[in-house]
């Protein structure tokens, strides 16, 4: 039973695909349990572009340009709780791949010129600039987890991410092991909660929810070697979501 309280929510997007924002907005506009208890006070997509005081601010995307740092600090100053929503905001995600090049190289390759619009060399996660109160990982985060987070807020309950791994969720559904087929799958060390949706649809886990099982990483790399997966292939797949993690260091 939900307590009759109401919270104000703000939604902001930094650089990213804005898929996390669309997921959040879809929940806010269609979840009957939540709709009467939530007031959306800021969201550019929904026609309220100003930064406003809010109980909870959801921020997706990462900081890729100098002016986004200032924007993020303004958001922090006006939000009681700040939630990093999605892989890009938590660990750089796909945006972090720019760190393999210089901005000048990237701009030259894509535009044939220097743009001079304040592109940063790195993709900064939110917690490198401001205090982040909660993270909801995933590319994009699962719907149920965002709903759970909102329900916890409304009920005054503590929100916790699962410590289960993707591998646990995969095997408990009886899905065939992709590692054993020689695929590069990081499922044994990656945080679950996604119901192993990628392995279920025939694609290995490439780690969008981040590493939860640090102790198992060395074993995983050993395991990949045993299955004749070359270090180059492993590196290629680390360079999807996990460029900024310890897994990358271990592969050096």
């Amino acid at each position, binding site marked *: 039973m939900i307590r009759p309280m109401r919270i104000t929510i703000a939604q902001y*997007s930094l*650089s*990213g*695909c*804005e*898929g*996390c*924002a*669309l*997921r959040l*907005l*879809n929940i806010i*506009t*269609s979840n*009957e349990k939540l*709709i009467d208890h939530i007031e959306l006070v800021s969201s*550019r*997509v*929904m*026609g*309220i*572009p100003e930064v406003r005081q809010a109980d909870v601010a959801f921020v997706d995307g990462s900081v*890729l*340009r100098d002016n*986004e740092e200032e924007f993020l600090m303004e958001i922090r100053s006006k939000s009681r709780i700040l939630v990093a929503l999605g892989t890009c905001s938590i660990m750089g995600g*796909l*945006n972090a*791949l*720019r760190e*393999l*090049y210089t901005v000048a190289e*990237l*701009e030259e*390759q*894509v*535009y*044939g*010129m220097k*743009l*001079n*619009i304040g*592109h940063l060399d790195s993709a900064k996660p939110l917690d490198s600039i401001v205090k982040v109160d909660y993270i909801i990982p995933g*590319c*994009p985060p699962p719907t149920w987890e965002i709903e759970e987070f909102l329900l916890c807020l409304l009920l005054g309950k503590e929100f916790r991410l699962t410590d289960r791994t993707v591998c646990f969720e995969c095997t408990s559904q009886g899905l065939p092991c992709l590692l054993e087929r020689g695929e590069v799958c990081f499922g044994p060390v990656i945080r679950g909660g996604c119901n192993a*949706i*990628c392995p*279920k*649809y*025939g*694609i290995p886990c*490439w780690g969008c929810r981040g590493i939860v099982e640090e102790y198992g990483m060395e074993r995983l790399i050993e395991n990949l070697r045993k299955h004749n997966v070359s270090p180059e292939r492993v590196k*290629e*797949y680390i360079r*999807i979501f996990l460029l900024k993690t310890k897994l990358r260091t271990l592969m050096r």
Partner: protein
Amino acid sequence: MNVLEERSFIPGIEGPMKVEVSIDPSSRRLVDLEIKPMESSRFFEVILLNREAKAVPYIASRICGICGYAHALCSAMAIEDAWRLEVPDSVRSLRELIAILSTVNSHLFHLVTLLFTWLGRSRPISLNFKRNLIELMKVKTHTIDKALNELCGDKLHPRNIVPGGFTYLPSMNRVMSTLEGVNRLNKLVYGLVEELLSFDLLREEDFKTHYVALKNETRYGLLEGCISIDSMIEIKVSNFKKYFIEQSISGSPAKLCLLYGKESYMVGALARLNVNSCQECEYRRWLHKLPSTNPYLIPIAQGVEVMKFLDIIQDLRRELRDEPRLVKPHHYPRRARGMSAIEAPRGLLYYEVEVISHKLTALDIITPTVQNLANMKDSLKYIVQRLLEGMKRAQIDEIRREAERLVQCYDPCIPCAVHVHET
């Protein structure tokens, strides 16, 4: 000279964008107008290089949170073209269904956000209508979204789309059952479009331009056909770059694409309806006439498309069969180029790839918003000048409001627009 608009954001669109308008108040003349996307580049065309082909659609779909399906499909089809790989009819028809579902999803999201965005700026929306909007989103979640979740694992970013087909598919019976409720959407969408029309916000304008879309003689499709310019010139996908020339702009993260390198053109729902005529469509009366030259009617064209697509979904639903859905090439070419052009929700999306064996080695993406940006600018110039001519003195607020509304009608997707690459 006044700089009229200096805003960081235009509400209701994906990705921040700024429009700057300079007018001479004394002569009521438009001096200059610039569109400035403010999004950062994410350089997908570089970070996708040297990837195994099967990972390309997975990553490409992350270019955009709303057109993710279009990017996944178009990249997979371009790689198949390079591999000279023919996929079976079962894959083609399922892809068509997926493209239609994701387009309905995108259009409905745009129409609902438009109404929310315009709320309070015109007459108040009735409580009853608000309930209908919530009901519509709920039914969409339980039908369209659920079907995409079932088919591809996630309604935002598909998991199983790869060159050659699908890595996995659920039982088609399950997909069919999720789509049973689609009929319930018809009435709600009808009410949504009627309400939008009754707002009296959509100006009557006659902005003549070129319209470009895929044309398919057999049915109103999104994935197959030749590229038609104004229903008069039809070109093969492989000739795309002979007609449409992309240009970088100093200091801007978004490029522009121009017909013959000099003229702007429109892509998207209105262009698709104009090019394909759609004489028999009963909802074309919403547009008054076809072809239509009024950019303010783009959201209405999206409404017409949704009504058409809801019928097509019913037809395709009945054709679903559990059949093998993945083919692989007999051998990988040493080095080959491939192209693909499909209709994303916001218009024509073009991918050109080079592969060496099973690895992607070069990539060029031309997105719908890149193609529409110059047209948006031209139509804004046209509208602002028309407004100025009709005013005794320049009314800044009204010009700002109309400019903003026109941009919102185009449904631009800036995260897409700033990810373009020329090889």
